[in-house]
Structures are given as structure tokens and as C-alpha cells.
């Protein structure tokens, strides 16, 4: 095992050498329907001591020691969005990660959120 783990299944010319859905047990939909491509994912520390994870799940747990979105997970681990979603959903089910609030919010909460975004953009 090296940090290159997984890369032996990617060939520059041929592309991915493993069928994508082998990584998700054949599923194309996450069980958690709140997951958006922008939803933040953070590893629960205690989960890193557990040994019952598949290698692809472990890669997510390692990456998300600090918060990343589903889109970033997919980009950094070179898997399609749907695969990242299914895997994160598994990790939510097994209580290994926490996810951020859904992107869709109620109109009432929006004004404060938008004001914070505005302040943040001005400060850039």
C-alpha cells in the first residue's frame, strides 16, 4: 500500500480501468437525498480509528479531516459526482462523517445568509 493507492486502476490512455459502479456496489442514487454537490462533509474523528471501511471510503475520510464539498471530493479523488455522493451517503449512514446544512434554505434564513455572503465578498 502506498499513497498512490487506487492510481494503478487509472490508465492515462484508456481511462478508468474499473467500472464506476463497482465503486458504489451498483447504486446510482445516494440513500441520503439531502446531499447537494456543494454540501460540506467533515470526518468524525473517532471514525478514523475504525477498521471497517472500504479503501474508497477511507480516502474520503482522510480528505475530509477538514471540510470539503461533494464536488471537491469528486474532483480531488477523481470520481464522478454520483460516485462521491453515494459513498458520502454510506459514510453518513455509518456515522463516520457529518454533513453541513442543505444548500436550500428557508426564505427567512436567507436574508442573514445573503448579508453574510455580501459582507464576505466586500472583504475579499
Amino acid at each position, binding site marked *: 500500500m502506498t499513497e498512490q493507492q487506487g492510481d494503478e486502476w487509472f490508465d492515462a490512455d484508456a481511462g478508468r480501468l474499473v467500472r464506476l459502479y463497482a465503486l458504489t456496489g451498483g447504486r446510482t442514487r445516494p440513500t441520503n437525498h439531502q446531499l447537494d*454537490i456543494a454540501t460540506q462533509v467533515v470526518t468524525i474523528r473517532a471514525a478514523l480509528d475504525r477498521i471497517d471501511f472500504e479503501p474508497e471510503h477511507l480516502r474520503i475520510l482522510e480528505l475530509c479531516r477538514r471540510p470539503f464539498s461533494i464536488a471537491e471530493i469528486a*474532483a480531488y479523488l477523481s470520481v464522478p*459526482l*454520483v460516485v462521491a455522493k453515494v459513498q458520502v451517503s454510506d459514510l453518513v449512514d455509518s456515522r463516520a462523517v457529518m454533513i453541513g446544512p442543505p*444548500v436550500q*434554505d428557508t426564505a427567512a434564513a436567507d436574508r442573514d445568509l445573503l448579508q453574510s455572503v455580501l459582507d464576505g465578498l*466586500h472583504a475579499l
Partner: protein
Amino acid sequence: MVPQSVKIVVAGGFGTGKTTLVGSVSEIPPLTTEEVLTEASVGVDDLAGVEGKTSTTVALDFGRITISPRIVLYLFGTPGQDRFWFMWDELASGAIGAIVLVDTRRLQTSFPAIDFFERRHIPFVVAINAFHGALEYEVEEVRQALKLSEKVPIVVCDARQRESGKLALIQLVHHAMSRLPAKAAPIG
């Protein structure tokens, strides 16, 4: 605490500068990810025997701006090809709104994007990407040509310039706020 994500969609026709804009304001070099759509992924959960099915890959560019420890803003560029509308729906769902980039030499390439956000009542601003130097048309001429309502803000920007892209984002957030139901007037 897990941060809250917010999204802004950067749309527009091919070659209008979407990825350039995302890159100029993002705190990280734009990332690319892909979504795979198979025939079987519509309404079916079990892909046993999927070998013979065709699949389509859609590439997606995005950037990130950490607004605060609690809020992260993502900028998603729309896939260029119109046939990937399913992806637009996911990007736009729950988004603050959209910046529709237009190139005045090819206004028509941005019609589908404008139409998309108008129909779904998603707040958007039109950003004229004036990267070729002088603006060839008056803003109001562009508004007429695009049949845009007076309510849709038009900004002139240079997608390569961070400050310019930032102003377009600020305009959009202002516009989105202006469309929220009015706050109850404070008493006294």
C-alpha cells in the same frame, strides 16, 4: 460545526468566459469534476447488467471562496452543451442565483441561459464580458437585444480581472436580496 455551502451559477454560451470568471475570483485554481449519466440512471437504482448501456460524461468547472469559517461559496460554471440541462437543474437548485455572461459579438449564445433562469424565477444578472476592450454597444442596446426586463441588472465586466468578477458577484447577491419578501418594518 460543519460549514454551510452557498452556490452561484456562472452561465453563458460557449466562449463567453465562464471558466475565466470562475478562475479570477476563486481562491483555488478551478477544479473540474464530471457527472456520468447512464440511460439506466433515470428511475432505476439497480444497475445490474449495465454493461451494454451507453453513458454520457459531463465536465463541470468550479471554484471556491471561503466567506467565513461558517460559510463557503461555490461558483459552478455550467456545461457548455445545451443537451445537459439535467445538470443545470442540479447546479441551480438552492443557488443564490446566476451570472449570465454575454459576449456582445455572439449575444444569441446566451439566450438559452437567460431563458432557463427566467422560467425558473432564479435571480440572475447579465454580465457583458468586455474583454475585447471598448464596449461596442450601449448597455441599453444589449438589454433590448436580449429582451431583458428592466429589473434584471446588467453589469459590464472583464472576467479576467478579480475585482471585476467580484463586483459582478456582489451585484448578484444584492439583486437576490432585493427579491426577498420585505422585512417587517422596525417599530419606532
